């Protein structure tokens, strides 16, 4: 520790920018224990837990629908490379976790892409990784989004698909109007 503090050269630190949104965030205070916009430095070996139980979790949500531990994040280094990556693991037995469109069940884990959308229930997290050199620490920074992140990113999931209609084979390149009604068919 002291070696690090005495070092002349300052290292950049890997940072996870986490933009959060929940439809009830203004009324219920579910994010009241999260300090937004501040960067928090954490030891690189720490397994960061998110959930309802403040004795176990580093970041808590004041919401009875959230599991005591909902999910965890941890840094790791790919074997024989200098690349630091994050892993996300679903710790909830009841609720599955969506990382982009991949579903994680209890104790499933996956490497986080550089930018991804993590969801469970009504919670939305846009997680973006900034690379850094330090092996000692990483940082987190939370940002509160005033509006749904799914709409902002216009994810394919949000595009309505009529039950008896046909839809383009590649929906990501769909330039047609995104609002449709089955009765219009």
């Amino acid at each position, binding site marked *: 520790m002291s070696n690090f503090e005495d070092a002349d050269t300052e290292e950049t630190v890997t940072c996870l920018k986490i933009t959060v949104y929940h439809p009830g965030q203004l009324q219920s205070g579910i994010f009241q224990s999260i300090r937004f916009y501040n960067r928090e430095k954490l030891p690189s070996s720490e*397994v960061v837990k998110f959930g309802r139980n403040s004795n176990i979790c580093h970041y808590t949500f004041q919401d009875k629908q959230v599991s005591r531990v909902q999910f965890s994040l941890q840094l790791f280094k790919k074997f024989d490379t200098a690349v630091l990556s994050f892993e996300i693991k679903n710790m909830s037995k009841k609720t599955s976790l969506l990382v982009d469109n991949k579903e994680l069940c*209890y104790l*499933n884990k996956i490497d986080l892409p550089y930018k991804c959308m993590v969801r469970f229930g009504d919670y939305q997290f846009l997680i973006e990784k900034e690379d850094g050199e330090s092996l*000692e620490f990483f940082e987190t920074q939370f940002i509160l989004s005033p509006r749904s992140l799914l709409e902002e990113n216009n994810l394919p999931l949000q595009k309505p698909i009529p039950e008896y209609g046909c839809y383009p084979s590649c929906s990501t390149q769909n330039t047609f109007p995104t609002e449709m009604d089955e009765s219009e068919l």
Partner: protein
Amino acid sequence: MPSSDLPWPAPSCSRELTAAGSQPDVPLAVRLPSMEKPLTVLHVSLYHPTQDPDTFANVPLKLQHDASPLLVGRSPDAHLQLQLPRLSRRHLSLEPYREKGGTLLVFCLKVLSRRGCVWVNGLTLSFLEQVPLSVVNRVAFSGIQMVIRVEQGTSLEAFVCCFHLSSSPLIHRPQAEETDEWDGQLQEQPSPSSGQRAPYHLGLLHGPSQPSPGGGPETQLQKAPSARMLC
């Protein structure tokens, strides 16, 4: 957090108790009482060349642990506490998880020591590196030799570690093989491409894993890893 922390008896009788308590004919996962689903069991054999009783003084016979990573190190808050000055307070972790679509617990080993490395099945891992474990795993760090055998149960709530202290090395380095026979071969073939190292590493990774005549977990290697590789 460990919910069962049985004290390890005096080293002189510990091995005897371990031997007497083992029932190789019946899987331990089946024998554990009052569990709805059998727990996955990690059979962990430990050896240190100094045979200092203090090294493993805080190692329990059996340790039940939840689905969080199990910490191994010198720190009092490590779940498996080993008393070695060269060991980091948190040296490594054994993390249970589930493969996508899998129903049983599997494990990965992650190095938490900034200074020390950990040798796992032929790979030398450094800080923050991790590898998945297979059924039988050879692990070495800070002079400690460890063989982990995974006996899968269906419970996802917790797992059990059963520890066994070995009086003989688990990863053998026969004196006769300490010559640089392989090095000589490498020198004779002056094309040390990456392929040259492959058979050596594969030998360590996939070498025959034969139980000792007594049914113990000792692992014989075709070619012993060097001291450097054993960290």
